[in-house]
């Protein structure tokens, strides 16, 4: 539509303009992609498989609508998905993985390299992922950081390489930092340190995450914060460190400190909302879900303190292309990857508290006040609604944990699987059985 359209058109234009602004620009068409011939691609179906919080049906539906071919989202839990990728690689097109799963997948040779030159917004990806630095700080390398597992040697994806390369093992798509969640009405003070998770004051009112490889990191954060010990690498502990951690956990359990431990998103929401627990390891959208029920809940801002303690546990899911993708299907997969970075997804996941690695395109799909609230950590200029349309932030409220920059320059460690994994899992179960 050019500027010198007939006056009769201006009314319609105004309406369009308002609509576009009003509804978070959600309807802005995706442009600039070399659309492959509709006729050839309409039969293509891409199966994008992974955990429910990263591989979301609504995103797949939108992508199918925008791209003209079918995206099928399938959810499995973390273990079932990696098992499927490894044992039935041909039943998967796009594998959604965390850093440690990339290591597994690469060891089995089931991925092909992603050509970063075919990713339009590659230069828009935050340097956390591409360079391992952010806000002038080196991003923590405790655990398995996405930067560490992101690059490979070529289209055949032979092995993981350190440092920037043309070829990628996976393309980061959604990430966040996990922290402690708490009920301000019950706790009665501000929580900014992990040691509060094991504060005797909350005896019988605390819960910890029961996914062994990341639950133990939350425990390590708490013990380090309390001053019990300093870990060499919380994401890759020695046997001795594991023993110390488990001994401390068993001690706490014997004192009746933990009311429960949770392993699913819903359980954590339920524990908090029902008042069984006042403080626990928690994920940002779970805090949002508690707020949606009208119950106060805070995602504790555990930024790194001047003494170097505290910090969030970061995680990142990314998309890997399976080796069997070729020809038109591979082209379609690249279109899909580019669609992911075009903004709709970034805006969608932001509304339940996650981030896209390419904030600049997400911005175009959000209202300015939404973007300021979710990404910039500024006070809400208008009432903030979740992706389900529930009001969760009043005018003037600020997102817990602040801006994206504040969170991600404060990562203490990344989700991981340790070298001593088998030993750790066994010891963790001793804690459970104690």
């Amino acid at each position, binding site marked *: 539509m050019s500027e010198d359209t007939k006056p009769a058109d201006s009314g319609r234009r105004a309406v369009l303009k308002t609509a576009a602004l009003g509804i978070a620009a959600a309807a802005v068409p995706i442009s600039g992609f070399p659309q492959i011939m509709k006729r050839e691609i309409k039969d293509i179906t891409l199966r994008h498989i992974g955990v429910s919080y990263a591989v979301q049906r609504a995103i797949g539906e939108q992508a199918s609508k925008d791209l003209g071919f079918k995206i099928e989202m399938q959810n499995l*839990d973390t*273990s079932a998905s990696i098992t499927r990728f490894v044992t039935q690689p041909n039943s998967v097109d796009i594998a959604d993985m965390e850093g440690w799963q990339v290591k597994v997948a690469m060891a089995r040779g089931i991925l092909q390299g992603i050509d970063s030159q075919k990713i339009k917004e590659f230069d828009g990806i935050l340097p956390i992922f591409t360079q391992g630095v952010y806000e002038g700080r080196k991003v923590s390398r405790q655990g398995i950081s996405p930067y560490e597992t992101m690059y490979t040697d070529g289209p055949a994806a032979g092995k993981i390489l350190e440092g920037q390369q043309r070829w990628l093992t996976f393309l980061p798509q959604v990430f966040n930092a996990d922290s402690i969640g708490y009920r301000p009405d019950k706790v009665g003070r501000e929580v900014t340190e992990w040691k509060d998770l094991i504060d005797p004051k909350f005896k019988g009112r605390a819960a910890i995450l029961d996914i062994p490889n990341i639950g133990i990191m939350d425990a390590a954060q708490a013990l380090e914060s309390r001053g019990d010990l300093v870990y060499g690498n919380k994401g890759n502990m020695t046997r001795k460190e594991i023993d110390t951690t488990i001994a401390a956990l068993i001690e706490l359990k014997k004192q009746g400190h933990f009311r429960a*431990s949770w392993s699913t998103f819903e359980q954590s929401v339920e524990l908090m909302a029902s008042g069984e627990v006042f403080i626990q390891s928690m994920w940002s959208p779970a805090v949002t879900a508690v707020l949606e029920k009208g119950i106060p809940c805070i995602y504790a801002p555990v930024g790194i303190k001047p003494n170097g303690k505290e910090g969030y546990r970061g995680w990142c899911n990314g998309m890997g292309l399976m080796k069997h993708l070729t020809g038109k299907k591979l082209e379609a997969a690249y279109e899909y990857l580019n669609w992911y970075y075009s903004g709709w997804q970034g805006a969608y996941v932001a509304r339940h508290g996650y981030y896209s690695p390419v904030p600049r395109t997400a911005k175009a799909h959000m209202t300015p006040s939404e973007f300021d609230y979710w990404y910039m950590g500024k006070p809400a200029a208008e009432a903030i609604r979740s992706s389900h349309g529930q009001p969760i932030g009043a005018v003037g409220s600020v997102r817990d944990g602040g801006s994206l920059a504040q969170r991600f320059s404060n990562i203490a460690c990344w989700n991981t699987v340790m070298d001593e994994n088998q030993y750790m899992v066994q010891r963790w179960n001793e804690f459970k059985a104690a």
Partner: protein
Amino acid sequence: MSIRLKPYLQLAPLTLVLLLFVAMPLVFVVIVSFFHTEGFDTVAAFSLENYASVLGAKLTLMLYLKMAKYAVLTWFFCTVIGFFIAYFLVFHVRNRTVAIGLFLLCTVPFWTSNVIRMISWLPMLGQEGVVNSALMAVGAIDSPLRFLLYSDFAVVLAYVHLFTIFMIVPVFNAMSRIDRNLFEAALDAGAGRLQTLLLVVLPLTKSGIALGSIFVVTLVMGDFYVVKVMSGGRAASVVSAMFDDISTMLFPHAAASAVILLAVLTALIALVGRFIDVRHELVASK
């Protein structure tokens, strides 16, 4: 020739299905249990390290003790409740149709999923749940009873709720086959109601109880979800530990653990088998 072949042919389809879907996967599990884990990779090998690791761990003993505790408690309550429900249905409800109707009523909860039936206990037992609210309202307690949920109590309660039907059915079946004349005989011989129950009904339903026990105990031993949810993740089970292994690709270790659990269960069933003839129980009706 054809006469001799016929029974084998008749058996063939079932044998094939069993071989394919029961025996084969088991064989794989046994094979993998000897494999070796290297980093994230499973390497074909013949190594006893997984068995050494499982059998040598204090954890295994802890898990089996916990499992035994759950199994015994659940078995006890399921047996008592199941026995008396079946007793009532078979001997007290005169009308056969009504009895069958009531029996079917027992199965109604099973039309919904296990998960739903278990999770519906959460709002019942929580600190702001139905039970605590009611007790507080009538002034029986001052502060909520917290042992109700996320405890061994909650786990056993859920097990009993979920598995009692597996006791009712075989006991009901065994009781239905008891010759009613025996009651008159017992009465004539001067036995009271309790004596008849203990000396006539109980021995004759022994095999039904044994069969039900197999169901209940194996279900408890194979469970990990009920323990997880009802204990609020505070207790682990043999199977939940396997699940944690599998979630980080430690297949051989999990397989060894599975083989050991299978051996324990087989031994248990063999033991029960000494007391009852399962085949007789299933085939010989009156």
